[in-house]
């Protein structure tokens, strides 16, 4: 799938709970500039919050990259969460509702997939995790 990136990316380093707040506020601002309705802004900000939280919980350090994209005349926001943490040994298992190794509610990744339109995850044990999630403007 070829998605055109438009303009600059915004990178938010993630290392603490304050960064989670920063990332979702930046994401909300970018989505708002793109003209997303308020209901979508809430979904996007919530998804960013969960992705950033996963970084803090599992990898300690990482980044959230926010970018505008365009495809077939549609505009959207792409959220990439990247870390060099321990990785997820079994991505399939992690994508099942209710699964968690951190004592949290364990609904993070499947929930984020439901909040966004497109969702991809690449992770290997010891090699970190990258999640790419896209929301299209309707």
């Amino acid at each position: 799938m070829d998605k055109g990136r438009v303009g600059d990316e915004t990178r938010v380093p993630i290392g603490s709970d304050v960064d989670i707040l920063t990332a979702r506020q930046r994401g909300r601002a970018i989505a708002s500039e793109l003209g997303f309705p308020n209901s979508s802004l809430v979904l996007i900000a919530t998804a960013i919050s969960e992705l950033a939280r996963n970084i803090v919980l599992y990898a300690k350090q990482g980044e959230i990259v926010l970018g505008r994209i365009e495809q077939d005349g549609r505009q959207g926001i792409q959220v990439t969460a990247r870390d060099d943490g321990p990785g997820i040994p079994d991505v399939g298992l992690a994508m099942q509702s209710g699964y968690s190794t951190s004592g949290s509610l364990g609904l993070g990744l499947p929930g984020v997939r439901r909040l966004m339109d497109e969702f991809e995850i690449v992770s290997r044990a010891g090699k970190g995790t990258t999640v790419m999630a896209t929301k299209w403007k309707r």
Partner: protein
Amino acid sequence: MEVPILKQGAYLIASIQSALTDADLLQLRDGLVEKVGRFRSRGVIVDVTALDVMDSFASRMLRDIAHMIRLRGAETVIVGFQPEVAFAMVQLGLTLEGVATALDLEEGLAFLDQKLKGTERGQGSRG
């Protein structure tokens, strides 16, 4: 930003004014649990009207607050979930089961009055 906790008769009202960090939420939890004892409060209202994001951590903190306050002998009601926030929470599977909710502050006060009716401190608590 620290959440102000107001004492209103037998109730405590925590009105969240802006987005909260995890540390702010932990402070709110500990503050409410402590003040319920200090003021011998019977009910707690947490107003989340101003929150535009309720993620898994914030949701867990609200649940923990409600359960800890109940163990301290008081009732908690969360008020003011916005429609978009409620939708996002359901998508994430955050249903806050076992936690009382009400539309807004007014309904929350009515809920506590009803819940605590007949108890010494519940009656006329708003007078």
